[in-house]
């Protein structure tokens, strides 16, 4: 049991939480990074990417959906869990077509940042090189399914924040893919607007604004100077008590 009420231990360190917070929310608020891709502070957690899997009192669970409870013993930053996370990220890389060298999201991409954080040095698995359609029909937004990791943040944002339900996932397993809710199935015929949350939340380069790629110079991109873990720590310190 931890000594302070409403606290748990994460990798041996005491982490305070507010009632109702998830383990991931409390950890991030305290400056402790747990790798994650499908979770966003603005969206309801849905535990789909499984990257934030931690061991809570001996049992595996998603830190983004598990509520923080007093006295929990949570393990996250362990060689075993990080090794499994690395495998998951490697699988994401080979399942899509993620060509970082030419990608306009490079340097600003959460998938790339998490891969660096987990010290992923190669894809490990053979690339699938799937054939995935690119939808350029929208005047302002490009949908490149090659880079989609099916985190569903656009799906949730469109439904819960924009109130439009533009995006959805269809198919099962390897055939899963992002679909657009419009008569033609094309983004240009949907209700999506450039200012929508769904058009601005993609953690990778699947939904990007047209004609502005590479505008941020190398050195000023999101993860050029601070990695994703260091940024989580800095954010907590900046907003801390």
């Amino acid at each position, binding site marked *: 049991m931890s000594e302070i009420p409403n606290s748990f231990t994460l990798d041996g360190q005491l982490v305070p939480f507010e009632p109702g917070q998830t383990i991931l929310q409390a950890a991030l608020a305290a400056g402790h990074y747990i790798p994650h891709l499908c979770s966003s502070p603005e969206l309801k957690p849905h535990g789909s990417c499984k990257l934030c899997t931690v061991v809570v009192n001996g049992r595996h669970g998603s830190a983004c959906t598990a509520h923080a409870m007093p006295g929990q013993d949570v393990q996250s930053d362990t060689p075993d869990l990080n090794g499994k996370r690395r495998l998951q990220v490697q699988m994401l890389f080979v399942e899509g077509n993620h060509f970082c060298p030419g990608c306009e999201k490079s340097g600003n991409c959460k998938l790339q940042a998490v891969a660096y954080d987990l010290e992923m040095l190669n894809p490990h698995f053979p690339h699938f090189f799937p054939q995935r359609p690119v939808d350029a029909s929208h005047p302002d937004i490009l949908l490149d399914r090659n880079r989609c990791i099916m985190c569903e943040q656009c799906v949730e944002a469109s439904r819960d924040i924009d109130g439009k339900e533009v995006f959805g996932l269809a198919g099962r397993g390897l055939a899963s893919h992002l679909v657009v809710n419009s008569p033609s199935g094309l983004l240009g015929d949907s209700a999506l607007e450039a200012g929508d949350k769904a058009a601005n939340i993609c953690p990778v380069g699947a939904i990007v604004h047209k004609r502005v790629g590479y505008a*941020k110079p190398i050195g000023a991109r999101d993860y050029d100077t601070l990695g994703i873990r260091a940024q989580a720590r800095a954010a907590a310190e900046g907003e801390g008590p």
Partner: protein
Amino acid sequence: MFDLETAANPEKLRRIAIDPVSRVEGHGKVTLLLDENNKVHQVRLHIVEFRGFEKFIEGRPYWEVPVTVQRLCGICPVSHQLAAVKAMDIIAGFGPLPATAEKLRRLMHYGQILQSHAVHFFHLASPDLLLGFDSEMTRRNIIGVVADHPELATQGVLLRKFGQEVIRHVSGKRVHGTGAIPGGVNKALSAAEQAEMRGGIDAMIKWSRDAVQLLKRLHHGNPEFYNRFGAFDSSMMGLVNGKGELDLYHGGLRARDADGAILFDHVDYATYDSLLDEEVKPWSYMKFPYIRAIGPEHGWYKVGPLARVQVCDRIPSPLAEVERQELAALGQGRPVHGTLLYHWARLIEMLHACEVIRDLLDDPDITGTTLMAEPGPRVEEAVGVIEAPRGTLFHHYRVDEHDMVSFCNLIVSTTNNNQAMNEAIRSVARQFLTGREITEPLMNHIEVAIRAYDPCLSCATHALGKMPLEVELLDAEGRLLQRRAHNMAGAA
């Protein structure tokens, strides 16, 4: 039909293959056919490359292209980025670039010229020129140059490094940065970055001058050999500015014939496809460009340093211009065509690049902060052309109404030199191969001729002076008589 391109009775002849002669974009090989008396009947440089960039760039957004296509090459990515972005400036509808944006692009480009020419001369070519074409193979590489000429080798490394640092300051990375984006550039140059480069450029100018003097000493040691090795007459093409001066970033197309007469001048490069055509030959995957008006037989041409310094009227920087005049004097009023003179011209261009970098760094515009042009209406199709280190580089794109590339045609510098490189090795074959037993130094004579053009193959595989080569000597019945090979590590 070109002399030595196709033998009349190939089935009667012995075949010697140098296979593979690799290049960055894929692989090439040299084949020779000889009769019983070892007379050469056929010599071909076959390029068996397939890169596919023109195809897989289709269906990609136009703003991605300048960054993606530079992956064509690790030695001159800046050239591909700038040729593509010049086309995309037009396609995206941007007006004239602000002075700062154009000058930063020029700075990056001349940094590219400097580093590419430095790596070619010091790392790739100097082992042949300083140590000898037929010197001990295991020492005929940059390590051998370091051992015999340590100060020179150090200068070569530092010249290249300086060029790469110029590129990094503009594009964010030494290789494969971003920098140029449709409509301008994405980053201003800071005063600290300007000062850092300005502090180093004078030494680069001095070392570049020394390199030109070195090449002249080599030439003066055996002028007849340097002038005649792999020599052949041909037309020449390159960009010149409005005043007819050398301009490696932008200008109109000019061509001269082998005697120096103007064939065309100040031609808008957007009309390149009505000016040039490409011939396909069954024995090579690389096309053979030629000037349409003259036809495939006589319309082919040289590009790159030796062509450029002779196509222009003058070089707009004083030190390089003096050197250009000395090279021009060699021909006594007629252009020079010796293959090894490419090295001389390349070093003059390296000196010019250093002078241009210095002048750009002294220009107050270079640290300006207006980086983007004013946008205008989108255009469907555009051509971007630049003088890459190896010669004229054409990028041609069409982009659909949804901003996606629907067509791409690239004529890369080495392709422009396809016929010229073939003629060079045929000239070498006539001069040196007939009647000889195949030896490694003999193989190297062919490599030396190809290497003088600085095609991408020497960049890729000659970094340590050891192209992977395999030469087989077969008798008329196709039986193997003799085989010599060495791998990339140089092991025989």
